[in-house]
Structure formats: C-alpha cells, structure tokens
C-alpha cells in the first residue's frame, strides 16, 4: 500500500496551508477534517506521518492518536500541531512520554518547521501487503 501524509484539521484553511507546504516534497497527501474521517482514513490506508490537530469538534486529537497507535498493521508517527496547547504543556509532555505523539508544534508555525518535521519523521517506504 502506498505511503502517504495525513493532515487532520477541522479548519479547511489549515489543511490548505499544510498541503501547500508539503506539496513540494512530492509525497501523496490526504486530508481529514473530522475525527471520524481521520480514523477511517487511518484504518483503510497507510500513513507513516500524521499531522494532527489537538481539538477537533467530534473527537479529541489525543483520542485519534490513541486510535492510530493501536492500528494492527502499521504505527504512524504523529506530530501534533495545535493552537490550544503550549510547547511544554503537561498534556503534551505526557502524550510524548506515553508514545502517543512524537513531536508537538504550536500554531502559528513557520513553513520550514513543518518541512523539517517531515524530513525528520517521514519513513520512505511503502507498507508491504500481506
């Protein structure tokens, strides 16, 4: 299955910005604007890197992360991007400690920050079909 980047944010404009930042990297990009949609995409596809918003109306970002790390056939790297938390927010630190997310980035960010996160966590391989 083809490896892709998943962007989860209920703000359409945020998805637009993220997509345009990452487009240059030449990897497939999928967006989801609700928790339910994100879980569906995660279940049916293969995303080695997920940019996840913390607060989505129908689901908490961390709950989506909990869902994602329990996926049976792969373990995505999740970067949380949020305007709700701050960098050393205890909730964020705990989520990193618990291995739910690999990194946190506060909004607003620079485009380069997103790109370097991509380079740091993107795993250049496709999921082997079993």
């Amino acid at each position, binding site marked *: 299955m083809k490896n892709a980047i998943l962007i989860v944010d209920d*703000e359409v*404009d*945020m998805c*637009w*910005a*993220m997509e*345009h*930042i990452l487009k240059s990297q030449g990897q497939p990009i999928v967006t989801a604007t609700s928790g339910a949609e994100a879980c569906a995409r995660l279940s049916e596809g293969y995303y080695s890197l997920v940019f996840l918003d*913390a*607060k989505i*109306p*129908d*689901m*908490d970002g961390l709950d989506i992360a909990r869902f994602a790390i329990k996926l049976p056939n792969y373990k995505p790297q999740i970067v949380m*991007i*949020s*305007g*709700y938390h701050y960098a050393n927010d205890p909730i964020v630190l705990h989520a990193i400690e618990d291995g739910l997310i690999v990194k946190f980035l*506060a*909004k*607003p*960010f*620079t*485009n380069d920050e997103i790109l370097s996160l991509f380079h740091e966590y993107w795993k250049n391989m496709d999921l082997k079909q079993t």
Partner: protein
Amino acid sequence: MSDNQNIKDANIHFELLYNTLLDAIPSSVLMVDDKLYVVSANQNYLLKSQRNRANTFNRPLAEVFPSVILENTGLEERIRTVLRTRMAISAQKMTYRAPGVPIRIYYYSILPVPFKQVMLIMEDVTEQIRLSEEVRRVERHLASVVESASDIVLSTDMDGRVLTWNSAAEKLSGLSSSEVQGQFFYQFCEVGQKQTVEETLRYINRKNESFTTEFGLLTPYVSNNVGILISWVFSPMKDDYGQTVGAVIVGRDLAERRKLELQLRQSQKLSALGIMAGGIAHEIRNPLAVCSSAAQFLLSDDVDWDFRMQCSMKIQANIQKASAIIENLLRFARSSLDTEMTEVNLCAVLKDTAELVENQAKVQKIKVKLLVHQEIIWVTGVAGLLQQVFMNLFLNAINAMPSGGSLTITAKILDDRVVVQVVDTGVGIPLGDLDNIFDPFHTSSPVGQGTGLGLSICYSIIQQHLGSIRAESQLGEGATIIVTLPLLIGS
C-alpha cells in the same frame, strides 16, 4: 297615721332611694358639707378606702382622707371654692399610694349641690392610665425602630400622599417630615416616576401583596433631576379591620450595593474570560497559522498569479476571523461600563453570546444549537448585563459537559414574557442543590476553579430586569436553566 309619720316614711323612702342611687354609681362618691364634714359616702368609696359608715359619716374630711392627699391636691381649698362660687371643678388628677398597696390614680370632680354641699366624685383610672402608658411605650418603641432604621420607611394614604417620613428619608432626601407631609410621594422621586408610583399603589391594593421596584429618589446631593437609586418595597397598610388604607414604603439606598455588585460582576466576568481563554487561544492561533503560512508562500520566487491571489485572500479572510473573535471579546469585557436600561434585542444578545462561547464549546466537543426562530425580541434592559447572564449560563452548561454533549438555547414568547431555556446534556444538578444554586458562594466546582458567584450574579441581574430565573434538572440527565423576562411594552 299622722302627717308627721307620713313625712318621716317619705324621708326614709327618699333616703333609701338616694343611697341606692349613690351605691349604684361605679365611682366613689362623697357628699361634703360646708364645714368640710363628710355627710355621706357611697358603697364604692367605703370599699375602695376600706372604711365603714361609722368612721366616715359625719367625720371631718381631714379625718377621712389621708393628710398627704389633702396636702398634695389642696382638696379642702377646692371644695371651699366650689361652695363659694357654685362652679364645678372637674377632671382633676389625684394619686395615692397606701402603705403596701400599688399606686392608684383617680380623676375627681367637685360638683356643687343644693343645701351647701358638694359632691366629690372620684374615678379610679389606674388601669386606664397604665394601659395608655403601655400603648405610648409601644408607640415610642415602634417609632424609635422606624426612626433608627437606616432604610427609608414612609407611609402614604391610598392616593400616595405622604403620612409619615422617617429620619433616613429626611437624610437622603434632604426634606424634613413636615415639608413632605400631605405631598404626593412621587414629587420627591425622579421625573417620570409618577406613573410607576401610582401603578404600584394600585397593584398592591388590588393584589393585596408587596411589590418590589427600583427608581431614583431626588436628593440635594445630586443635581440635574437625577436621584439616587433606591430599591423600594411597597406593602399595603391595613387598619384594624383589615382594610387597606394606604401603603408602607421601605427603600434602601442601592449605591453601596450597586458598587459591590459592579465589582462582583466585573470579577466574575474576568473569571469567565479566563475560562474562555483556552478556546480563544485556539481560535485565534488557527487563523494566525494560516496567515503565517500564506505569507511565507508569497515569499517564494516562483508563485503564480492564481496562487498569489489565493494566499492574499486566505490572509485577508483569516485576519477577519481572528479580529471578529477579538471584537466579541472586547465587547463582552467592556460591556459592564454601561448600566443604562435601553431597548435590547434579546435575539442578538443570545446570538453574540453563543458565538463567544462556541470556541470553548468546540474544544470540549460540545455542539451549540441556537434555536431562536424570531429575528428580534425586544426587552428592556442592559445588553451587557444580559450578555453576562447568558455567558455565565452557557459556560456553566459547557463546564457540566466535560466529555462533550450539546448546549441548546431556545427563546419563546409567552404572553407578555419571553422564556429562554438553556439546556445541556451534562452531569445535571443534584436535587438538594436545585434550591441553592442561586445563592452566593454555592459552588459545585472544585476549590480554586469557581467563585460560586456566577449564578447569584445572574439572579441579581435578572431580578433587576424584573425577570425570573430557575433551574430544572435530574442528576446525570443534564440541566435546564429557565430565564423569563418581560417583553418591552408595546413591542
């Protein structure tokens, strides 16, 4: 039978009749001749003075009466005067304390009668005097209660003319009791309150119950026909037969309370802002992030015209979005400065407030449903205060739904009132708490998370708007807060 015998029989008959009549009089009666000897005395006198006929009849007055009475009253001299002038002396006071007996008080009269005699009538008024003194004492006590009260206490007749006016009223109005007596009460109130006063008087008379209202009392300390704001309680004043004969009006200077309330409201508002800060941060950093990224896109060299336009429009739209959030916030933060009652569109208040809390609701996965079908519902009020009430109720509802839910707001018109229901699907209110959630300092929040003043402030604001607020809930099944406000008359 001889004539003599007949005359003698007749005399005996008259003497009997005379004594019977004297004895029948409930007062003490003494006949005294011009030598100041007691000619006769009735039964009542002998009983009261514990004397008998033998030591009273044909005895000098000085022997029959205790000398202390004779000295103090000058009784002998007065009897002589009546004998001489044939003019009655009436209603004189005489007090006497016999050894070991409580003091007795008499009113006495000396009446001239034929045959150089006077009739001394003495009436024991000890009991009446005692009673009237008791009445006076109670009256004095009541008067001092009214006079010492720091609240205004006044009474009016049915037409609203001032009957009494206590010293607190004198102090606040600068008008003495004698200046206002008989004048219409509304003359001393702020201009335009004539109708309010008259309607309130009619209301308490018709409904036979008290009525609370607020308006200004004119005072020399504030000029321009603006008074000091007083909270008034009008109560019907009854006579002994239960008939309403006027009104008792008690007024309390609200200045101090208002100042305190203002501080409370302000601090409560700040705590509401604190609660909303999380939601606001989220909502503003999102558009900021979009703007930031778009601006960075524009920095690249190879931007085509279409994408450049797209970026500019995204920046523009997201700045708008952020500034709308800030503007709402500013309006909420500053609104407590106006206190003037004006026409307020309740629908707009509900919409603005719902928008303000929507950010917070979103981060808690709560759906806000504003089901108000009208565009405009006019009420009289202070928009900022009403917004604070609903802000409080909405935030409470959001707080009650830690794991998401829905907040539904409805407004319906019922006769001359509008009923706003704030319904959440949260933890609910325990039955025992339903009665005291509007009390100051009642809180279900953990220590440090709530002041417990929110709902009591809502209560006081709604009361000031002549409305009512109550709660319905079942533990675990959410809560409904029902706010009722009078519609703007003629709307």
